């Protein structure tokens, strides 16, 4: 009996021991900085940038409220709220667009013959490895007033003046969907690839239509992949700052740009740190929901 316990304990000890280098690195260079961010959020704003080492709730206060410069009255910070709301809205829209495009794409790849499947998968991942800036510039070329879409439509005589897409929410949505599509396709592919296609035969055998097979058989079974894809797209969309800045211009900010702004010259670092912490909390909550949802589906996994 004792030997047994010792063996189990040494199993765990070995697991920790082997993981130590990775854990040390991560705690030092990834978790540590996050804690410092949390710390900065409760400090006082420095004169030009940075912070003064005095405790202050001002950073957190300013996440939701603003104080009038003249009479010091407190009101809800409408501008901040609208930025939050736009970020969430655009991120959800991005997730849905990538899903509508990504599910058929993942299905298409998973149903190719084994020989060429890797090739199609590779094709999906190439853009993913291309620099984010380059990809964003690429999409700019497409949606600009003088870009491909407008030029083509005008040449075809369908429109007389270019449609303004750049610097609108639509441009940001197109850009983010473009940038994050591979993140949706990959987990969906992984789920469909494991899918037992005989189940579809069984579905058709039992008189289901194609739509019923999709809704009643395929989607419930690949649900973990769908949830994973949603999380993988939603989280980076919410924190995106490069794509919204380039495609949305200065006016249509998302949380990411707003945070970025706080770390510019003469700006408010504690507010930026507090906003970062809020973003992190939103992500953590969605993560917990995801874990709950997937563990309910699959209690043994």
């Amino acid at each position, binding site marked *: 009996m004792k030997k047994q316990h010792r063996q189990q304990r040494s199993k765990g000890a070995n697991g920790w*021991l082997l993981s130590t280098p990775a854990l040390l*690195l991560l705690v030092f260079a990834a*978790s540590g*900085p996050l804690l410092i961010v949390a710390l900065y959020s409760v400090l006082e704003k420095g004169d030009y940038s940075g912070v003064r080492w005095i405790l202050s709730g001002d950073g957190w206060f300013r996440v939701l409220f603003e104080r009038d410069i003249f009479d010091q009255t407190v009101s809800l910070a409408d501008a901040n709220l609208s930025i939050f709301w736009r970020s969430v809205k655009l991120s959800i829209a991005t997730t849905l667009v990538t899903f509508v495009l990504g599910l058929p794409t993942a299905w298409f790849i998973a149903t190719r013959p084994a020989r060429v499947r890797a090739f199609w998968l590779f094709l999906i991942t190439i853009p993913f490895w291309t620099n984010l800036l380059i990809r964003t510039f690429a999409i700019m070329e497409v949606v600009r007033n003088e870009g491909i879409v407008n030029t083509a439509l005008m040449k075809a005589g369908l429109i007389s003046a270019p449609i303004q897409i750049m610097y609108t929410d639509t441009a940001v949505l197109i850009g983010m969907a473009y940038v994050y599509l591979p993140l949706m396709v990959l987990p969906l592919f992984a789920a469909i690839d494991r899918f037992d296609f005989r189940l579809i035969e069984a579905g058709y055998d039992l008189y289901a239509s194609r739509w019923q097979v999709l809704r009643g058989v395929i989607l419930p079974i690949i649900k973990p992949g769908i949830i994973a894809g949603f999380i993988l797209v939603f989280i980076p969309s919410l924190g995106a700052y490069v794509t919204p800045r380039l495609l949305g211009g200065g006016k249509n900010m998302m949380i990411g740009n707003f945070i970025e702004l706080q770390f510019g010259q003469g700006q408010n670092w504690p507010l930026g740190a507090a906003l970062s912490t809020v973003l992190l909390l939103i992500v953590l909550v969605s993560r917990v929901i995801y874990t709950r949802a997937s563990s309910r589906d699959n209690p043994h996994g």
Partner: protein
Amino acid sequence: MAKARSFDVRTLPGFTAIAILSFVLLYAPILTLVVYSFNGGNSVNQWGGFSLEWYVVAFNNEAVQDATARSLIIALWASVISTTAATMAALGTTRRGRFKGQTVIYIIINQPLMVPEIVTAVALLIFFSTVKVATGYTGLGYLILAHSAFCIPFAYLPIRARLEGMDTAMETAAADLYATPWQTFRYITLPLLMPGVIAGAMLAFIISLET
């Protein structure tokens, strides 16, 4: 007369069309950009003939050269460090059954994946400015460490996937044939794991170059 076609359960209506549309959407912008980068003219609107001029300009720019060399050095070190750490962690977390604290390890390892990029950027900005103020050190070391940490999950995931797909009977058989734990790792586990390690290292390298 309708052509006799076998009923393919793997096709769903409209899926192939949307899939092809997705690929076109993915590649059209990039191809456009590539085509324009060979443009001899100054404006993307006018096609000034095929030219490598912009690439020559980029390569001759010293700042670009320095930055490229710097990124490569960081990426090389980061991929080596993160892959080594990730391989060890993957071995520690998959091959020995469940143990207490495993979930904690998973959460810490996957942390960089869960944190939005702007938060990571902010965290590192604050961190490095604090470190700079405290020690005055601005060398590559910190960047390499930060990149290594950030790349660990990208290296860890393919390695772990490979390990989980590997039959534990291989290691059992090696132990049965008088191999010590180290020999089992050296002659059986590592060679079989190699594709995963290479994939993990490449991912880490690319991720590091990109950030």
